[in-house]
């Protein structure tokens, strides 16, 4: 086996006039884990798409195990040469079973008929070898994100991938899941696989990678071997070009009466199963209440009920004493509730619209941008200009389509839209998921600002680090119920136990 699994030389890839990759050199040694870091939009995903064959570079040269891979290759060719990729957004057909998803990737010329039995057997075998725990007959749509991730990895292994590209695999995992995931990665490395790991969590890179490459604005900002001397700060400086502040001033300035009061709330999920059971809590004025919990324990439904997208089946909630149970989103918005949805690309933004239009999605009826009938172009321009300045949205102009923005800047557009009105209650669902550390810092600061201005913030997050950084109190949800409320000082362990449903603190709220 050659020393290098992958050598990418002088790779450039343009989108229009913008260079997503600008003469990038990247080397992956065989049998190692290589971290790939960079701010949102630095070009990490693009570089990996180029390697895998989903996108084709405009110039450069790619060697895989010493042999040249044509620049214009297809994913099929990439797979044939042993490259497997697990995408940031999973490439699984949700309406099909695990086995069917596997069958999809196989060559048809020799086997025109489906033979799920053979495939199933191999899935079980591989799943056992790497302790992936996958049921071949499960429908993808019914699997948790973590499980889907393992399916993706297994799918690459199934096709004998010797190079595995993992694009932000941990962004969607709980800390526990992430640790389990690292065990798997180590096993893979031991089995001789070479792995590229993209992540925004520097700790993770330091914990598991052997080497790291940092991209900045499409160029390589540096490469380093990871050893005991590497510190988080070094990496973040390389990425952002400055020190990133991770010590927020979290001291409570205001803390007042209950703002949001939730009483005995019950709700069902899409499939008609009970998702929220008798949930009661309150968020006070000038407070960030974090909801901790493993994904899928009712957090999504809770948010949706609070912003009016889902009907509750029982119970009620009041904002500043006003009963908003069962009210329409419009009515709830009118009561100054802002919402940062978890899935910004499909639920938060109109991707094919300009930044300008996305900024006024909520306020287009207000006097600030419209008259009795018509929208005022000039007023809109001013408002959008101001917002994009205030929230430091980096773009080539307000006409830029939002889909061409980096994840961080997309999130800023949402923040600008949702926070500019000075919300009384902010419901934020995993607002920093997939954001680079710079953007992460920014978003957390914005939430603190809302709190400090006297608003109430309900932060749903799967990221315990984030929760412990900025939350004033932590409510743990498990199986749609509250497991009780924890103060940050009480430590991570108890929260972890409650998230696993082991310990119920309900009694001494």
């Amino acid at each position: 086996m050659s020393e290098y699994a992958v050598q990418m030389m002088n790779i450039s890839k343009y989108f229009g006039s913008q260079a997503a990759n600008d003469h990038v050199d990247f080397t992956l040694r065989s049998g190692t884990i290589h971290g790939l870091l960079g701010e949102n939009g630095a070009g990490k995903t693009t570089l990996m798409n180029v390697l895998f064959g989903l996108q084709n570079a405009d110039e450069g040269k790619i060697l895989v195990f010493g042999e040249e891979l044509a620049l214009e290759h297809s994913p099929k060719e990439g797979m044939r040469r042993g490259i497997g990729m697990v995408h940031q957004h999973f490439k699984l057909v949700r309406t099909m079973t695990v086995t069917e998803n596997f069958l999809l990737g196989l060559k048809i010329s020799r086997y025109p008929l489906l033979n799920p039995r053979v495939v199933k057997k191999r899935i079980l075998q591989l799943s056992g070898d790497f302790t992936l725990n996958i049921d071949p007959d499960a429908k993808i749509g019914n699997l948790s994100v973590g499980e889907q991730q393992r399916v993706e990895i297994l799918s690459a292994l199934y096709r004998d991938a010797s190079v595995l590209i993992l694009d932000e695999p941990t962004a969607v995992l709980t800390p526990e899941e992430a640790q389990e995931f690292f065990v798997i990665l180590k096993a893979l490395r031991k089995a001789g696989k070479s792995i590229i790991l993209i992540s925004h969590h520097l700790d993770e890179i330091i914990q598991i990678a052997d080497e790291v490459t940092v991209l900045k604005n499409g160029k390589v900002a540096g490469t380093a071997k990871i050893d005991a001397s590497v510190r988080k700060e070094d990496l973040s400086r390389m990425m952002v070009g400055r020190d990133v502040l991770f010590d927020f001033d979290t001291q409570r300035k205001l803390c007042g009466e209950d703002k949001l009061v939730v009483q005995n709330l019950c709700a069902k999920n899409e499939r008609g199963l009970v998702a929220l059971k008798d949930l009661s809590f309150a968020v006070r004025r000038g407070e960030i209440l974090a909801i901790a919990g493993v994904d899928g324990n009712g957090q999504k439904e809770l948010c949706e009920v609070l912003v009016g997208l889902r009907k509750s089946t029982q119970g009620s909630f009041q904002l500043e004493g006003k009963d908003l149970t069962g009210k329409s989103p419009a009515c709830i918005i009118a009561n100054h509730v802002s919402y940062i949805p978890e899935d910004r690309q499909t639920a938060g933004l109109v991707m094919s619209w300009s930044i300008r239009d996305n900024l006024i999605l909520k306020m287009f009826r207000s006097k600030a941008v419209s008259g009795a009938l018509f929208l005022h172009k000039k007023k809109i321009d001013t408002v959008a200009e101001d917002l994009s300045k205030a929230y430091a949205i980096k773009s080539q102009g307000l006409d830029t389509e939002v889909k061409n923005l980096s994840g961080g800047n997309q999130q800023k557009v949402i923040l600008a839209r949702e926070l500019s009105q000075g919300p009384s209650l902010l419901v934020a669902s995993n607002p920093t998921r997939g954001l680079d550390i710079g953007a992460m810092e920014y978003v957390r600061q914005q939430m603190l600002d809302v709190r400090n201005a006297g608003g109430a913030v309900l932060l749903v997050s799967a990221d315990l680090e984030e929760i412990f950084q900025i939350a004033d109190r932590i409510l743990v949800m498990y199986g749609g119920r509250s497991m009780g409320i924890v103060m940050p000082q009480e430590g991570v362990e108890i929260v972890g136990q409650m998230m696993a449903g082991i310990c119920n603190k309900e009694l001494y709220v």
Partner: protein
Amino acid sequence: MNNDFIISLLSGTLRTSTPIILAALGQVYTQKAGIMDLSVEGTMIIGCLVGFMTAFFTQNLIVGMLCAGIAGMAIGAFMAYLSITVKANQVIAGTALTMFGTGFASYLYRVVFGVRKLPPVVQNFAPVNFGKLGEIPFVGPVFFSHNGTFYFALILVLVTWFVMEKTVFGLQVKAVGEYPSAADAKGIKVGLIRYSSVILGGLYSGLAGATMSLGYMNTYTDHMIAGRGFIAIAVVVFARWLPVRVLLAALLFGCANTLQMRLQSIGVAVPSQLLQALPYILTVLVLLGVSKYVNFPGGFGIPYSRNEK
């Protein structure tokens, strides 16, 4: 209602549903692959003409069916080109092709056959002889009295089911319709599979058209399809793209249509125009009943492009 009435109704149902079964089966591939194909009507009329023309000149019905299929595939390829390569809006592409098919068939017929005192005819498909089976009371006249096109349609129900459920191709069709970028990432050529599906849909529609001129009738006229293509599009949706349900749904429509004819004939006191609307009203009602359970493929109607996020 006596026995004869029911026998007549049921055997008429099977007869009238044949072209709809075929065309709707073709749409199983097309729609499952994510393409909304409104060109079915135009493809059917082309198949109807080409099938008739070639059968007329070769005096061979099978050749006629084959050529109709090929012509259908050609229109399918055209639709595929517009909706997949050009990434045109599928509503406009389908409407344009239905216009094209209608005009082209009418034009070609006149060019080839000129103006005749009596229309050219072929010896159309004769009823299949099932021997003793045909003599079974009730069952015989209802099921074993038809020409080959109906049994051919039945066979295609099975074939389509088999292809969609048991072959890699069928799985790939579903994948490119549901989530094309996932299929792409798995190394499936999305364009190729979509092309194949639309062309297959065209093949079925072409055959469906030919059953009108070679099985149902024995000649060609311009308005022979008369909306049956659009019905097929509706049928496949409320059958939720399952071949066996397609069969049932097409039979339901055929039954409503035959029933209104029989009722008119025996002199039911309802204006004929309202009876004629019955099959369409029924289609809407069924659609309303089942729509809650109808989930269009995730990528339905959306052109796929790798570089779009």
